[in-house]
Structure formats: structure tokens, C-alpha cells
């Protein structure tokens, strides 16, 4: 449905990964991001792909439809009435704290858990209760799950072997898949002879060689150290874009989710809190949970909101959107300025985080980029009386 709206001109705030449809398919000009800077999350440059294969026309169709999915473990409702459409070719991330049900949803799509209720459709076919080996989806596991007794080559051939691909053909396909993750030299090694990053690449090659319609990734980068993780994020994103496979990615790392995803689904206590592009979920959180979970936020509600904003709805404002100005500052008409006292100033490298008290006794957190060296910068110290200034459009009224 979302796609249809997109198709007739209701564009999403950020185009879905491959295509923005205009009125007629003939005029469809899929867009592709340019440059790796996209991975920093602030990319706005899009370039049209001029050659489109017929398969690419099916982009904007929901490849996975989840309806009223439910799963209970003992007395715990792990997944509680979840409905979600996953579009073909998109990179969608299921994000949430541990125990929020995101992994259970992934495992139900893969077929490792049998849902208690609801349905899952893949490409229009119901797969809710099919065993994993009858589904055209594949999984990359957190601990890689490589077979320890098989060489890299045999691991990658495994799925082809179960599909009865002739020997020479599967050897060749496996060779290509291993080459695509740049590990040709390690083909005859055993998994324990590889580093964590190399194992992760083989786990990826092992699933990609099967050309799945949907690739499920269960915190695949969780076991890697930070630098390697960032490299793999870039690599995963490149592979996903080049292969045009739908990626369903589970993580609890919000930065990772924002960097890589076309859309993010935020889970909490077995329910979906919000679905949207990284910008949407960050800038327009639909619930208090989302506002607090993604980045940090000053969430003001009830009596405090009455004092600050003149109404008692819940309001969220990001620490980086509040600026501190000397008392002499005159706000523009679209700004709000509030006299505050600096209570604490913590230097954390790239930023300084201030805690300030308003006259109403409300504490606000304010983050300021350290653009200059200390001393050349007009930083504030505890006790300073200053103005906290924000643009009115930067406050978000949270509906729920």
C-alpha cells in the first residue's frame, strides 16, 4: 500500500532504496545513492539508474507480509500481535533492546520458531508454518554457525549440495561466492583457522551463493570489534545494494541501524513502536519509548510541559537542538529562549554535555559540539546564568 502511494507520487521522506516510482512504470527512474558518504547517514545525493531489468520493476512490492504475528514462551509474550510489510530490495532493520521480540520475529520468518498466531507471506505465498528448508529465505547467524568440520569451500557448497546442484557447478559457484568476499586464499581452511571477520564473510558467502529472496541477519556484527564492525557495515551495505537482495537485519545497536537501513522497525516488549526511515524515527518519534531509545532526548510531559510549553502533552527535544546563548541574546520570532543556570558541564571529546536547570526546576540536557579548543571557545561553566534557545519546529509533540 505504501508502495502504491509512492507510485502515484506520494513520496516517502526518503526514497526506498532502489526506486521512486512516478506515475507510469515506463517512466520509472530508480535512484541510487552515490558514494560511500551515504553510510554516514547524511547522504542526500541520489543518482538515477538508467538501465532497469524487468525484475527491478517488482521493487515496490511487499516481499514479506506479516499479519498479527504472535509467539509466547511460557508466560512471556515474546511477540505480541505484530504486523509489518517488508518491501522487496530494501534494507530493513529490526531494532530494539534485548528481549523486545526482534530476534523472535526473525526466527519466525526463517522458520526456526513456530508462531502461535498470525501469518507470514513470502512473495504472496503463505509460509507461516513451513519448515526452514522449504523457505526461500536464508539466515546469517550471530555466531556465524559455520560447520567446524568442513573447509570454507565445503561450508559454502553445503546449501548447493542439499539442492542437488551438480558437483562441478556447485564448486564453481562456491568459488565465485568466496571470491566475492575476498577470501579465495582461505578456501581450504577450517573455520577455526579464520579470524572473526573472515568467518563472518564466509557465513555471508554461504547464504548469498543460494541467491535467497530475503536474507535474514541476526546481529551478524555483534561479535566483531568496533573497527571491523564498521568495515563490515560498509561491505554488507555494498553487497546488499549490488545483489539487490532484501535484507532483514536485527541489531540492538542504534548507530548501526541508522547507518545501514532504509527503514527501521523499533521493537519494545514484543510490539512494534514505530516503523520509518532513520530520519523519521529520529526526528519524529511516535512514542515516548522511541524518543528515549534513539539517541538521547529531553522528554517533558505533564506539569513540566505545562510550565514550558503551555500544554500538558508529551514533548521531546534533542540535546543537540538546544543552544546555549549569553543572557544578552535576543531570540528570533520562531525561537524559544529560556533562562537557565548551568549545573554541570561534562567534556566527552567531540561534545560537551551540559545539564542546566530552568527556573521551574526542570533539568535539560544540552549537547554542544566542541568546534574550538578549550579557552578559544566560549564554553560555559557551572553557575553561569545563560539562555537555552531552541527553534520551535525542533520540538516534537509525541502522540502516544
Amino acid at each position, binding site marked *: 500500500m505504501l508502495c502504491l502511494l509512492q507510485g502515484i507520487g506520494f513520496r516517502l521522506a526518503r526514497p526506498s532504496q532502489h526506486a521512486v516510482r512516478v506515475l507510469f512504470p515506463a517512466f520509472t527512474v530508480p535512484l541510487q545513492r552515490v558514494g560511500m558518504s551515504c553510510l554516514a547517514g547524511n547522504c542526500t545525493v541520489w543518482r538515477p539508474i538508467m538501465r532497469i531489468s524487468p525484475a527491478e520493476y517488482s521493487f515496490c512490492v511487499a516481499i514479506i507480509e506479516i499479519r498479527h504475528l504472535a509467539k509466547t514462551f511460557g508466560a512471556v509474550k515474546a511477540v505480541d500481535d505484530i504486523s509489518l510489510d517488508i518491501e522487496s530490495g530494501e534494507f530493513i532493520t529490526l531494532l530494539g533492546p534485548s528481549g523486545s521480540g526482534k530476534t523472535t520475529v526473525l526466527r519466525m520468518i*526463517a*522458520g526456526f520458531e513456530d508462531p502461535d498466531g498470525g501469518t507470514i507471506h513470502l512473495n504472496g505465498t503463505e509460509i507461516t508454518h513451513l*519448515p526452514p*528448508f522449504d523457505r526461500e529465505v536464508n539466515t546469517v*547467524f550471530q555466531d556465524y554457525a559455520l560447520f567446524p568440520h568442513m573447509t570454507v569451500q565445503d561450508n559454502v557448497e*553445503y546449501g548447493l549440495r*542439499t539442492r542437488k546442484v551438480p558437483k562441478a557447478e556447485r564448486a564453481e559457484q562456491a568459488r565465485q561466492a568466496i571470491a566475492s568476499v575476498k577470501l579465495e586464499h582461505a578456501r581450504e581452511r577450517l573455520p577455526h583457522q579464520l579470524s572473526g571477520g573472515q568467518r563472518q564473510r564466509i557465513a555471508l558467502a554461504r*547464504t548469498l551463493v*543460494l541467491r535467497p529472496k530475503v536474507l535474514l541477519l541476526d546481529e551478524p556484527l555483534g561479535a566483531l570489534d568496533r573497527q571491523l564492525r564498521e568495515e563490515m557495515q560498509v561491505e554488507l551495505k555494498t553487497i546488499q545494494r549490488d545483489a539487490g537482495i532484501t535484507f532483514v537485519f536485527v541489531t540492538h545497536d542504534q548507530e548501526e541501524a541508522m547507518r545501514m537501513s532504509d527503514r527501521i522497525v523499533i521493537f519494545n516488549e514484543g510490539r512494534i513502536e514505530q516503523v520509518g526511515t532513520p530520519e523519521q524515527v529520529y526526528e519524529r518519534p511516535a512514542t515516548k519509548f522511541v524518543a528515549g531509545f534513539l539517541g538521547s532526548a529531553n522528554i517533558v510531559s505533564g506539569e513540566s510541559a505545562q510550565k514550558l510549553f503551555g500544554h500538558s502533552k508529551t514533548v521531546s527535544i534533542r540535546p543537540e537542538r538546544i543552544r546555549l546563548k549569553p543572557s544578552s541574546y535576543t531570540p528570533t520570532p520562531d525561537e524559544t529562549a529560556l533562562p537557565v543556570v548551568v549545573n554541570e558541564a561534562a567534556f566527552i571529546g567531540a561534545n560537551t554535555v551540559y545539564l542546566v536547570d530552568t527556573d521551574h526546576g526542570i533539568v535539560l540536557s544540552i549537547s554542544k559540539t566542541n568546534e574550538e579548543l578549550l579557552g578559544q571557545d566560549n564554553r560555559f561553566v557551572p553557575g553561569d546564568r545563560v539562555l537555552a534557545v531552541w527553534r520551535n519546529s525542533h520540538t516534537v509533540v509525541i502522540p502516544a
Partner: protein
Amino acid sequence: MSDTSMSRQRRPISSYLLRRPKVRLLGLLALPMTWIVGVYILSLFLLLVTAFWNVDPFTSLVSPAFNLENFRLIFTNSAYIATSIRTLFIALAVTTVCVVFAVPLGIFMAKIASPRLRNALAVAITLPLWAGYLVKVIAMRLVFTEEGFFNWLMAPLGIRGPGFSIPIVILTLTYLWFPYMALPVYTAIRQIPPILFDASSDMGAKGFVTVYRVVLPLIVPAIIAGSVFTFSLSLGDYLAARFTGGSTQMIGSIIAANINLNPPVAAAYSMVPITFVVIYLMVARRTGSLERM
């Protein structure tokens, strides 16, 4: 005063040993070496020596001499050769049957059974180890005897048991040695990460393929470890054949029969199962499985 007496207590033996590692090693190994060399190796060596002696046909006394007559006998006499081959076959059959039972049971216990059922089964498997050896052999004898439980149970179906014969010997020996196979196999299957089963089915493998391609290769060391017991214990056994085998003779039966009449022949013949076991262990060692026992 008390300070110095506490901290400067002299320990002459300890400090002597500390400075002499060889003496220390000797102290450590004295008892086990006495056991291995004095009892174990020596008795085997005496057995080997006896195998080259002979028995005076008139006096029936063993006389020390060096000849290969006993070995010639066991390698040319068809009864001895047939018994060796029969015993080897029985030991291999027992091992195979143990594996065939242990693998599905291990998979069930490790991956499917609830923790309660798993513990109950673990006790059930080890329970026979607590009963006496002879008790179990006699129990099998009672089940399969002419008027026994098996024939009584199967009578309505018109089925009669095979009577005391090679299959019953194999069954009895399987019953005796099964725990030695089942426990290592179960432990090995438990150690396979569950996620490997998920990964296998995710890549299109059904249950049987997963067992064949993932489970079996990973538990080969456990199977070999278990088979060392089932195989060598079966090779040396003779009471099972005696009580449940009817006329079936195993190497052990012949040794037992000769041990008073002709000890040198018994000694020579006992080299046969030892040789089988040594060959088996060498093959097992080449697979690298013995290090994981």
C-alpha cells in the same frame, strides 16, 4: 620470638626435593610404575613367553623351550581360524549395533527430550553398569531360553526366538557394553551447538541429511572412543558365549578350555585378540580420535 619460629621452620625433605627434580619425579611415579611394569607389563610378558613353551605329551607338564608350534597350530587349524574370525565378526557386530542404537538415542536425548526425560534416560542407560556382569548375562539367558520370556511373549504371533546362538551372543554383549558407547555419543551430540542444526535446515537440509552431514562427522571421535570399549571388551568375552551362545565358541571360550590342559596354546591364542585390539587402536589413533577420549 614467635615471629622467627613461625617463618623459619625448616622443612628438610621439601627443600631437598625442591632442588632435585629427578628425585621428585621418581617419588611421583614410583607407585604407578610399579603397577604398570611390575604387574601389567610383566604378566603380559610372561604370557608371551609361555606361548613359546610346550607341554610334554606324557607328563602333561609345561616345559620351557622355544618353539613356534603353538602359533603354527592356531594359524593352521581351521577350528582356531574359524573361531578367530567368528569372534572378530561378533565384536564388530556388537560395535555396529551399539552405534546404530546410540546415535538416534543421543540425538533424542540431547536435542529433543525435556531436561527431566533426559536425566531419566541418562540414569536408565547407566543403570546396567551398576548391576553385576553375571547378573546381566543370566538375565539375557532367562529371556531367551527355550521356555523364556521372549518365546512366551511372541508365541501368540507364532514367532520363536533363535535359541542360544550367535545373534543372542551379539545381543547380550550389546546389552553389556552399550553404556560405553551411548554416553560418549550423547555427550558429543550435546556439545554440538543448536545453531548448527538451524543453519543446516536453513540451507535446505532435512533431518536425515543434517544427521549424515553434520552430526555424524562431528561425533566420529566419540563413536571411535566408544567402539574401543565395545570392540575390545567383546573380543575378550567368553561368559556371554558360554551362557547365551549355545554351541557358539569365541576366542575366550577356547582359551578358557585350554588354560589347564595346555597353557602354552592358551597363551598363544590369547595373542590373537591382543593383536586385533592393537591393530584397531592404531587405526583409531590415525583418525586422531584417541586424543579426545
